[in-house]
């Protein structure tokens, strides 16, 4: 648990895509039924580096995400365990009805990984910048929805979902994330991780906004405000007990996500609190806007996704 202020939050040594590729390789080598599917983005997610080792278990479907999702359903229908990857908008926005009908409605076992989430799409710009993917997948009955904040967490969840039947969506970035967890950390579905305890406000974040929230907590501490920070990597199911417990303790909640405030983490937390523990709240996230090109740091400023924006939101409800 991170308790001290003025800690520097350093990027991990390993990129998220390296973790994706190395974990898939391990899963595929241990289980011949694991099949990874790509839509001409293998070199973007580093699976091109493992294809020589698992040629029959890594299929480049070409630039046809709708068909790729259907092929994954067909593989699942015959007992295979497909891991489908593309950029987040392609595996959700573009192939949503295929994911919904051929995957979820047909009750098949399909794992989906959406990368380059939100502002981390950087110079691919608005067409490639998904702020909606968590909301879309969260709407699917019984789907499991994760947003990962750290490479250890990504590796752990990729292994964990191999053994769990159903639709699992993992949202990630491709490059380096801030290192948050030791290698032996474990993660459960429907649970959040309390990374820092404070009695004045609870900041609930996911993905890249977890590190931003920790920075915000440091800034708040300098001003005498003690914040709890929760990494809510399991967006659905969500840790209702933890949310209610900390809302009740701190009487103020701010959510922070690299996603539209509608549909994702902010919505999910609001739904829990409005029914079980009405609490003063603010949601940090993208509001009625599309993506655009730019460096992630610039885009975080533009969409008000920085530690300072979190601090401002906290002060509004203190």
């Amino acid at each position, binding site marked *: 648990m991170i308790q001290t202020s003025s800690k520097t939050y350093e990027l991990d040594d390993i990129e998220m895509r390296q973790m994706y590729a190395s974990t898939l390789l391990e899963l595929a080598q241990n289980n011949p039924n694991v*099949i990874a599917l790509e839509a001409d983005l293998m070199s973007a997610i580093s699976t091109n580096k493992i294809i020589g080792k698992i040629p*029959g278990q890594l*299929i480049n*479907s*070409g630039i*046809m995400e*709708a*068909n790729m*999702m*259907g*092929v*994954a*359903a*067909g*593989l*699942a*229908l*015959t*007992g*295979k365990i497909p891991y489908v990857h593309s950029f987040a908008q392609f595996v959700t926005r573009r192939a949503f*009805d*295929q994911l919904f*009908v*051929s995957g979820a*409605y*047909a*009750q098949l076992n399909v794992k989906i990984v959406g990368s380059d989430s939100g502002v981390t799409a950087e110079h691919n710009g608005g067409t490639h910048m998904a702020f909606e993917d968590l909301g879309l997948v969260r709407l699917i009955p019984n789907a499991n929805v994760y947003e990962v904040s750290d490479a250890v967490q990504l590796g752990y969840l990729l292994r964990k979902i191999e053994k769990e039947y159903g639709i699992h969506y993992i949202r990630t970035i491709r490059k380096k994330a801030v290192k948050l967890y030791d290698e032996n950390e474990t993660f459960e579905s429907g649970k959040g991780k309390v990374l820092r305890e404070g009695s004045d406000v609870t900041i609930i974040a996911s993905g890249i906004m977890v590190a931003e929230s920790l920075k915000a907590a440091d800034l708040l501490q300098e001003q005498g405000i003690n914040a709890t920070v929760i990494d809510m990597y399991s967006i659905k199911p969500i840790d209702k007990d933890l949310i209610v417990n900390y809302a009740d303790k701190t009487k103020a909640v701010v959510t922070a996500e690299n996603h539209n405030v509608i549909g994702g983490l902010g919505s999910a937390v609001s739904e829990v609190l409005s029914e079980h523990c009405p609490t003063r709240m603010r949601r940090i996230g993208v509001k009625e806007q599309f993506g655009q090109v730019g460096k992630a740091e610039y885009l975080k400023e533009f969409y008000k996704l920085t530690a300072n924006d979190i601090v401002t939101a906290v002060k509004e409800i203190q």
Partner: protein
Amino acid sequence: MDIDLRKLEIFRDKIRLLTLKELHHMGFGHYGGSLSIIETLAVLYGEVMKVDPNNPDWEARDYFILSKGHGGPGLYATLALKGFFPEEVLYTLNQNGTTLPSHPDRNLTPGVDMTTGSLGQGISVAVGVALSHQLSNKGNYTYSIVGDGELNEGQCWEAFQFAAHHKLNRLFVFVDDNKKQLDGPTKDIIDPLDFVEKFKAFGFYTMKVNGSSLEQIYKAIQKGKAQTDKPVAIILDTMKGQGVPYLEEKADNHHIRPNPKDEEAILTAISELEIKLGKAGAMTI
């Protein structure tokens, strides 16, 4: 021809009879596109496919995916006749709480291999099934029927590219070329041009047959099985409402809510099929 054509004709007539009876019992439904695939279903389930009604999930079975899901009633009649479920179940078609919805659902109906109905999707799943068996060096065949209207969907052509690239030679795609879609003739809505040329260009071993000829369909499948490096496309020259002349000629025959004249024609068709099967000594369904 090494099959008992007479037996297959009786099976075909029984499928058509039960399809008409279940749709008539419901009162409305997709008559047109259920009837146009009856001969293909009869050949597949009567002669070609390896399935076990007592073990619908048998791993070594051949798979059938009705990508044009609105033909569900025709498939249900076939599965009931094969013994996957009792005939009485057919008369629950589309009733509240039924196991037989308009569009097939793998989680509701024994013998239904895949949930379909959102057009263009079933064929991708069929391709995935064929790929899976190829990757595992298994001999299962995958059969799928797509509609000519369904081929408006771009996803189908993604699936065909993928199937040809991976040389899925145990995948059979039947195109129900009944020349009509919901709003009218396919050539007036989106002209399909020449399906044979298109499938050849997409890398399929392609044949065109009379879709009301059991013999031609069977022979085409046998020819398709003999080649080793391409998926197979069989273009079925069919008619919506096939096998019931009145329905074949009816202009708006995709989905029918029978008027009194339609009602009379449907009842007549049912009665004629019952008499025909009775004379053949095959009325025990």
